[in-house]
């Protein structure tokens, strides 16, 4: 009897405002902190498998000291030239207060291992099936304010679905690692969270005076906060050249470019 594949495929989550309903939560048993050192290889292998099951094209364990960091990664991808989404959300570097280079280095160097995974853009069928989950998209003003034409809605929907798939893998791996006892596990986000989660609002809710982010899954991006050079990381892992403007770049910005992919990064221990 042929063995049935356990691969679930990409999951496109809905926007979850505030606390999620109890029935949607996964269930874990309490484990002791710190976890035994002999568990780590097995756990890392498990996270790689989860990433691939959730739709990643490839996933690898990377020693944290090999993650390429570059000061330019922050400046070239967020400021020079200015990113379309700079200051659009509370997770953008200037709004949150930029992390200085030494501190970012210290954060990364305190980890031993990370799981990196490559996520390809979703197929047309998945995008059209996920349109209801994404809902209304009201982001035209980010293109039209300067007199430019509005973006191609289908491509923008593809971008949003792509970022949500990456975000869901990031969330799942971080959750698994946390409940395995790696309390300081950390996933680095991809792209502006305004595009990923709040495309129905023109302005980030947390940027209002006295407001805070209602989305539990929003995360600061890797290259803006931690100076991760995703181009070098992709090359190092043999995944080929990344699209111009790095891990956050949207297909809407350069529709002719053929090799779009994202890298998700979860630092485990």
């Amino acid at each position: 009897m042929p063995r049935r594949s356990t691969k679930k495929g990409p999951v496109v989550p809905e926007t979850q405002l505030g606390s999620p309903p109890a029935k949607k939560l996964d269930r874990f048993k309490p484990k002791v902190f710190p976890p035994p050192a002999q568990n780590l290889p097995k756990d890392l292998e498990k996270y790689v498998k989860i990433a691939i099951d959730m739709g990643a094209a490839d996933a690898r364990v990377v020693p944290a000291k090999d993650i390429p960091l570059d000061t330019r990664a922050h400046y070239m991808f967020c400021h020079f030239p200015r990113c379309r989404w700079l200051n659009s959300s509370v997770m953008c570097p200037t709004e949150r207060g930029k992390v200085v280079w030494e501190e970012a280095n210290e954060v990364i160097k305190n980890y031993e291992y990370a799981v990196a995974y490559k996520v390809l853009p979703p197929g047309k069928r998945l995008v059209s099936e996920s349109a209801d989950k994404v809902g209304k998209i009201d982001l035209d003003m980010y293109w039209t304010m300067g007199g430019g034409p509005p973006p191609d809605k289908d491509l923008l929907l593809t971008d949003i679905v792509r970022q949500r798939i990456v975000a869901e893998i990031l969330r799942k791996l971080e959750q698994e690692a946390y409940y395995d006892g790696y309390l300081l596990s950390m996933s680095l986000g991809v792209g502006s969270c305004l595009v990923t989660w709040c495309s129905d609002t023109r302005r980030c809710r947390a940027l209002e005076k006295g407001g805070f982010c209602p989305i539990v899954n929003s995360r600061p991006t890797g290259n803006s906060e931690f100076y991760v050079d995703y181009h070098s990381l992709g090359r190092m892992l043999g995944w080929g050249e990344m699209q111009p403007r790095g891990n956050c770049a949207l297909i809407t910005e350069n529709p002719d470019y053929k090799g779009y992919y994202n890298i998700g990064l979860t630092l485990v221990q």
Partner: protein
Amino acid sequence: MATTRKKTQRKEKLEFDRGTGIAAFKPVVPLPGEEKLFEDLEKYRQMALKLGADEAIIFPVVEFPQDIRVWWRCQLPRCTASGANSYCPPTWRTPWDDAKRMKTAYKYAIVFKVNRPPEFWTGPQLWTRESDAAIAKFLPEQRKQEALKALSDYVKWQEDYKKTPTTERVHGTASIGPHIIAQARRDGHQFAVTFGVGACQYHRCAKYGATCVALTTGLCRFPLKVSPEGSAALYQDFSTLSGKMGWKTWVAGVCIKPDDVPEEVQYFQCGTTYIE
């Protein structure tokens, strides 16, 4: 020879001494001028126990684990109180270098723990429904009403809590620290400091509404009473610290059901008060 003996006498004691409640690295013979300090430290330790702590230990600050990553732990995965008030990350952040310098400026601290039932740290109710009240305007009508009701229930619970006797009404570890530093400052330890536990918005200001007034106006309703959360202020790694104290730490969270928690698991809340 005499010098060597003197050095041996001054050699720091490495073992954890449960009898006196004084943790590792306490000098066997207090250094000149420290006798009064140790009397005071013991007084504050007793005070913590009297105020409701289950264990309290005098701990040398040099042994405190500091980790820059703990500031991010409040946000990754994101706590519902993260950014909800002026003293939780990411709103508050002590620069890393300043935090390291501050740590080296202190010698001794009181570390205490308050045991908590599994329901306190596990289960879906950890997503505080009160925190939903802060974003009520973005929620559908039914959830908005639920969130506002949860906030008013919480305020009512707080009011009832205050009526119980002193030792019973200690709300988490948040009230033990301020009592100790008030006494310590009267005793002349002018740099005594304690750090908050959890979001001050819910400890202090729940009855005034769901939004922190300091985020909107820059002015706090409770100056002299609130301080930044420990991990935000000094990057204290409480999980590792608990291990050093000999307290077994278990992973807690919303995805663990209280029914799944075995009997041997003891969850607790940990607080620190830096004295001198």
